[in-house]
C-alpha cells in the first residue's frame, strides 16, 4: 500500500526523495500520511484538489483488495 502511494506520487513531484508515507493503524481504519516537499504541495493537491482526489480514488479502490479495514489518505503540510 505504501509502495502504491509512493509509485503514484513520486513521478508527479519535483523532489521525489522528499516523498514520505507513514501508516497508522487504528481499530477501524488505517490512515496513511503522505508528506512531500513544501514546494510540491500544490502538485499533489492540484487545482480544486483534483490531483488529491484522483490519488485517493486509486488508493481507495486498491485498498478494497488489500485488507478489510477502511483506508484514509492524509496529505500533511
Amino acid at each position, binding site marked *: 500500500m505504501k509502495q502504491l502511494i509512493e509509485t*503514484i506520487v513520486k513521478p508527479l513531484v519535483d523532489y521525489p526523495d522528499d516523498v514520505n508515507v507513514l501508516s497508522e493503524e487504528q481499530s477501524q481504519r488505517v490512515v496513511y500520511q503522505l508528506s512531500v516537499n513544501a514546494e510540491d504541495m500544490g502538485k499533489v493537491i492540484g487545482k480544486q484538489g483534483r490531483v488529491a482526489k484522483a490519488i485517493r480514488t486509486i488508493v481507495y*479502490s486498491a485498498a478494497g483488495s488489500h485488507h478489510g479495514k477502511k483506508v484514509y489518505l492524509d496529505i500533511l503540510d
Partner: protein
Amino acid sequence: MKQLTQRAATVELAIESALQDLGVTKEQVEIQVVENGRKGFLGFGVKQAEVLVTVLEKSKPDPKPAIARVTESTQTFTDDGEILSPVTKAPQVVQQPHIKAKPSENVVDIKESERVPEAKIYNEKDAIEETKQYIEDMAKEMGIEDLVITYETKGKYINFQLESEKAAFLIGKRGQTLNAIQQLAQLVANKVTKQFKIVRIDVADYRERREQSLEQLADRMADRAVRTKRQVALEPMPSYERKVIHNALSLRLDIETFSEGKDPYRHIVIKGIE
C-alpha cells in the same frame, strides 16, 4: 504535368497557398477540390480542405523546353519551389519580383516545419514511454499483473489501450478509477514534454461502451425534460463525457443543453424549448 496537393483550413486558403507554392496564377492551373473542409463541433471532427492543383502545360512560359521537361519529371513535392524558380526566372523576375520571393520563402517554411516534428517525435517517445511505465507501475501496485498496454498518438492526443483480466477493477464505479489514472498519467506525460498532451486511457473498449450508454441516457433525459416541462440536471461528469452528451443532443430541436457549476461538480442541464 505539374501537380500539387495542398491542405488548409478552407478550400480558398488551400488554393491560395498552392498557387503561391507553384508561383503561378489562377488562370494557369486547373483546380480540383479533393475534400471540402469541415469546421466540426467544439473542435471535434474538424477536417481540413484539400485541393489538387494541376499546372496546365501550354500556358506555362517555357523558353527551354528540354531542360524544363527533365526537371519536371524528377521533381518531388517539397522540391517544387526550388526547381520552379530557375525555370520561371527568365520571364517573371522583371515583372513580378515579389512572386519569385514568395516561393523561396515557402521552401524555408516547409523545411522548418519538417524539422520540428522530428524533434517532437523524439520528445514524444520519451514522454509516452515514461507515461506507459507509470501506468504499468501503478497497476502492478494495485495488484494487476497481466496488464498489456498498447498506444497510438494522434496530434496532441496519446491514446493508451489497456488489456487485463481485471478490467472492471481498473475502471471502477462509472469509470472513476480509470479517470483518476488517466488524469495522473496526463500529469506525468506533460511533465516530460513541452508541448501540451492529452492522455486518453481505455480499458477493454470501456470508453466506447460508455459513450453509447451516455447517448442513451442523454436521449432519455431529453425526453423527460420535454415531457415534464422542467429542467433536468444530470450528475457531475468530466468534460469529455459532457461533450458526448452535448454532441448527442445537438441535433434535437426541442431541447437545449448547457453546463452548470464548476469542475469537478460541473454538470449538464437539459431544458425543453417551448
